[in-house]
């Protein structure tokens, strides 16, 4: 499968910090839904910034190796140009909102890149519709709830038709219902447009139904970068990383370890119950 992002022996340190990323060698496959997991300070956010060209060239620092996005090195590229192909939603998403109304917000990057007014209007309308905010072009940002503002930001990313969307802990300030709803929307976009999705998330339970691949980071280095079902056991083997696995997979891998059985690829409770029943695990009232 074609790789849309490649990091080759990439090392990075901010100007006044120790190494934040060490010898990162990984590929993001086209059309994948990749989860980046790891404890705080593992380098997840910096890895996202590297994938969007913000690190090292925009922020500065010390680096070695190369990052290629859609086959081209990010070296010498403007972040605004990379943003036309790789959308980025930061953890502090409010800091990315720059306009007064929802319509202006979605149109901002399109107008900056010289799109014709008619196309801007059409793309704005479609993007707002895609995120469940149809007809809200004239809404002031303070008329939208936190969740709606996050959807608006997703719309402004979608409007430029990026091939990749990188999201850095997008639901960290949301309640569980809001988080589930946002990830459903992201998955819907992924499925409808074939957009490659990269998400940093420490509550991986939310992403279990959707994740195709997983990158596990610890202390700036890659512990595992593979298909989700292959990376999860590597995460389980490390006691520090184990609690970051989806709860269902902690149970599954625990059962496999304890009883020496091979269980299926659980993506939700229904899968788990069916598989346990098939394997002869019975529910006990006590």
């Amino acid at each position, binding site marked *: 499968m074609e790789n849309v992002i490649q990091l080759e022996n990439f090392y990075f340190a*901010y100007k006044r*910090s120790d190494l934040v990323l060490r010898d990162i060698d990984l590929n993001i496959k086209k059309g994948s839904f990749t989860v980046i997991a790891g404890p705080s300070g*593992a380098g997840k956010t910096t890895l996202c910034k590297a994938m969007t060209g913000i690190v090292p*060239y925009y*922020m*500065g620092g010390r*680096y070695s190796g190369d990052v290629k996005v859609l086959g081209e090195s990010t070296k010498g590229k403007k*972040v605004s140009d990379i943003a036309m192909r790789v959308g980025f939603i930061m953890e502090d998403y409010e800091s990315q909102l720059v306009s007064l109304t929802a319509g202006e917000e979605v149109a901002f990057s399109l107008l900056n890149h010289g799109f014709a007014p008619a196309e801007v209007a059409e793309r704005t309308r479609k993007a707002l519709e895609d995120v469940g905010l149809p007809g809200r072009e004239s809404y002031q940002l303070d008329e939208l709830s936190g969740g709606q503002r996050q959807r608006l930001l997703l719309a402004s990313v979608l409007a430029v038709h990026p091939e990749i969307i990188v999201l850095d802990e997008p639901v960290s300030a949301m309640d569980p219902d809001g988080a589930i709803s946002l990830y459903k929307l992201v998955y819907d976009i992924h499925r409808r447009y074939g957009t490659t999705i990269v998400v940093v998330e420490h509550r991986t339970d939310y992403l279990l139904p959707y994740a195709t691949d997983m990158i596990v980071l610890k202390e700036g280095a890659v512990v595992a970068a593979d298909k989700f079902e292959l990376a999860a056991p590597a995460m389980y083997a490390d006691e520090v990383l184990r609690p970051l696995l989806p709860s269902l997979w902690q149970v599954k891998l625990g059962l496999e370890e304890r009883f020496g059985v091979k269980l299926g690829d659980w993506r939700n409770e229904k899968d788990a119950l069916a598989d346990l029943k098939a394997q002869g695990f019975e529910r006990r009232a006590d």
Partner: protein
Amino acid sequence: MDDKQKNIPQLIEIEPMQDGYRWVAITAMLLAIGIILHTVSPNVGGVTPNWTIAMYSIVINLTNPKLSQAIGIGFIAGLTLVPSSKSAFPLGNIASELTGATVCCVLVKAMLSVGLENWKLRPFVTGLMATMASGGVFTFILKIVLNLPLSVWIYAMLPVVATVGVLNGLITYLMYAPVRKLFYVQEDKD
């Protein structure tokens, strides 16, 4: 040797591209804050801190602009002071702030070149000296415009300039760290 330190290749140091525009944004924001504070600050015993000078001193300490950029900062700072100036010669602000920003920039560059990058008193000293230079030029222009005796300038005006200079130095010193944290928060953390 620690395993993590082994086989780390030679790292390439790279200056941030963002600084191409960041200094403009920081200057605009701080000068705007300076104008507001300049407008609302009360006059205590004939002395008012010159917030505008303190703000551009912070900007110059933070961004270490080129001399031409510092002259631009000084010019804009001077222009912002002209409309609200109550002095006998408002346009004198342009000459005085051009001087203040230039002195501040030269001092910052000199300190950085001798390794005083992390000297805690750098904002105080540069804020004080910028104010002294700016105030000295401004009051000297006033002396000429109003045809005042030299002794009035030396014994009445310069002591006030020095007092304001110390005040501004303190403001620059106290505000430098929080402002730096605000604008450069992303640099040192993951």
